[in-house]
């Protein structure tokens, strides 16, 4: 472990220090930090530990003269001394998997400052009395804009991908590829995904051998998926890894499917059946509820207090509720507000994008305050299962929501701490920003966790 450094008393506040020379930040493999520190010390480096300064009035920026500072809680060390010896030491440590990553130390600066108006009022910023920081910022901004325009003119979309269709669906649907599902070793095993919809054809060959639980809630309906929509949504969220004869179309391929039929054979249902289905899903221990259903709202509508309360109770119980944002738009002429129950703040609202990551023409937007789209997922030309062993391509925010539900199941499998509120947070942390407006795509495009 690190040797304690000499104690110094620095009075009430440290004197202003010159900016330290920046070094290298190293990340240790879990459990390997101890041997990593020992290697550095036997290599002649003096290592200070963050615990050495716990009771000091101030933590010195220069590590009180040590060559390296070790932060035990984070498993990282910042090494300030250079030299060939250090380089060999670090290479050795990486070969042994003691150190898993290295990067140069960064200088951070404040992001606040005089308002833009005040700066603009200062006249010709580049040639005038602006500080070095202002000039650098403006040059960087200009370069970024120029680069973006160059790429757009060259036919790329703003997120760096070529504008032409770039998904070939030879082995996996474009929707799965776009959300990085094929890269993930996660399967949804052990996770219970409730799809509350028109039911599910559990006899479909693609789902042979899967754990499936079904329950009927809609009135005046058969227990089967007559409509077909439910089987399509279950397919996207939970479809198999290697379906025969079609590309892979499902994300959480080892999850336990809970198909609640809350919509009738005609595709319609009411609050009674939807709420009963949600209560059942929570009672059954489902970590994810997928709702590819909605009722239209109008501009000026208030948020949905009932589903605010229900959504919160679900999150508190460790169940995330994911809903389609609605298909009432006719873009570009009309952007309709997010429908119910997606418009509740405790229900995750999913917008639909096409292969170029543009908002689908039908996708609702955050037109009423507090009733936002949270994120976007593929919802155009989506291949999935249909009753009777068939497959078909559908479009709708109905197709986008189960992409999110499938990825939520992967995240939930990766760590038992990802439940309810924390699962919500983790989904949004992984999202990839898009050029489209947040009103339409929320924080951005759904992404599965990378291995």
């Amino acid at each position, binding site marked *: 472990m690190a040797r304690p450094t000499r104690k110094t008393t620095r009075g009430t506040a440290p004197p202003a220090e010159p900016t330290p020379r920046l070094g290298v930040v190293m990340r240790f493999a879990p459990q390997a930090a101890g041997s990593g520190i020992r290697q550095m010390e036997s290599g002649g480096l003096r290592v200070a530990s963050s615990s050495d300064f716990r009771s000091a009035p101030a933590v010195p920026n220069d590590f009180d003269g040590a060559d390296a500072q070790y932060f035990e809680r984070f498993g990282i060390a910042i090494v300030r001394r250079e030299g060939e010896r250090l380089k060999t030491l670090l290479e050795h440590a990486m070969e042994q998997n003691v150190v898993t990553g290295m990067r140069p130390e960064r200088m951070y600066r404040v992001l606040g400052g005089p308002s833009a108006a005040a700066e603009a009022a200062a006249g010709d910023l580049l040639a005038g009395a602006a500080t070095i920081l202002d000039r650098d910022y403006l040059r960087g901004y200009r370069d970024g804009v120029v680069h973006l325009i160059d790429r757009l003119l060259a036919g790329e979309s703003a997120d760096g991908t070529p504008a032409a269709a770039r998904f070939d669906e030879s082995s996996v649907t474009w929707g799965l590829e776009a959300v990085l599902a094929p890269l993930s070793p996660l399967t949804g095993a052990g996770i219970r995904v409730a799809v509350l*919809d*028109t039911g599910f054809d559990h006899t479909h060959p693609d789902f042979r051998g899967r754990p499936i639980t079904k329950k009927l809630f809609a009135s005046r309906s058969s227990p089967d998926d007559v*409509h*077909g*929509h439910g089987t*399509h949504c279950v397919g996207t969220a939970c479809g198999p890894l290697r379906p025969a004869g079609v590309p892979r179309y499902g994300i959480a391929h080892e999850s336990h499917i809970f198909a609640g039929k809350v*919509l009738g054979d005609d*595709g*319609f*249902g*009411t*609050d*009674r059946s*939807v*709420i*009963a289905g*949600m*209560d059942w899903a*929570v*009672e059954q221990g489902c970590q994810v509820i997928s709702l*590819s*259903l*909605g*009722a239209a709202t109008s501009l000026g509508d208030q948020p949905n*207090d*009932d589903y605010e*309360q*229900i959504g919160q*109770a679900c999150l508190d*119980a460790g169940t995330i509720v994911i809903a*389609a944002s*609605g*298909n009432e738009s006719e873009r570009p002429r009309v952007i309709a507000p997010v*429908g*119910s129950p997606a418009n509740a703040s405790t229900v995750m609202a999913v917008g639909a994008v096409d292969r170029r990551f543009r908002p689908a023409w*039908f996708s609702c937007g955050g037109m009423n305050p507090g009733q936002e789209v949270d994120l976007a997922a593929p919802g155009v030309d989506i291949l999935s299962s249909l009753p009777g062993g068939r497959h*078909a*391509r*559908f*479009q*709708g*925010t*109905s197709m986008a*929501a189960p992409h999110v539900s499938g990825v939520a199941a992967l995240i939930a499998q990766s760590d038992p701490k990802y439940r309810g509120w924390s699962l919500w947070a983790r989904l949004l942390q992984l999202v990839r920003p898009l050029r489209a407006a947040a009103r339409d795509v929320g924080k951005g495009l759904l992404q599965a966790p990378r291995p």
Partner: protein
Amino acid sequence: MANGPPRTVDVTIRIEKAQAGRLEEVVLALEASGLTNLDVHGRFLMVSGTVIPERLEALRRVDGVASVREDRTYKVQPPRR
């Protein structure tokens, strides 16, 4: 002259969270005020039921009730080809 069966509406009733400890009482009071065909979802503090429209106000006046809303219809978001 025989009338047909009275018109009824399906309603979704939200119970105030502060009343969670009194759920049983609130449900009894709703039934006494004319609510039938109840589904009680204690986890959500929500009650689904059926009532004749003339009794809607009586339901709203039950102590512990936050709101009484006629059921909305939901549909698939739909498979447009």
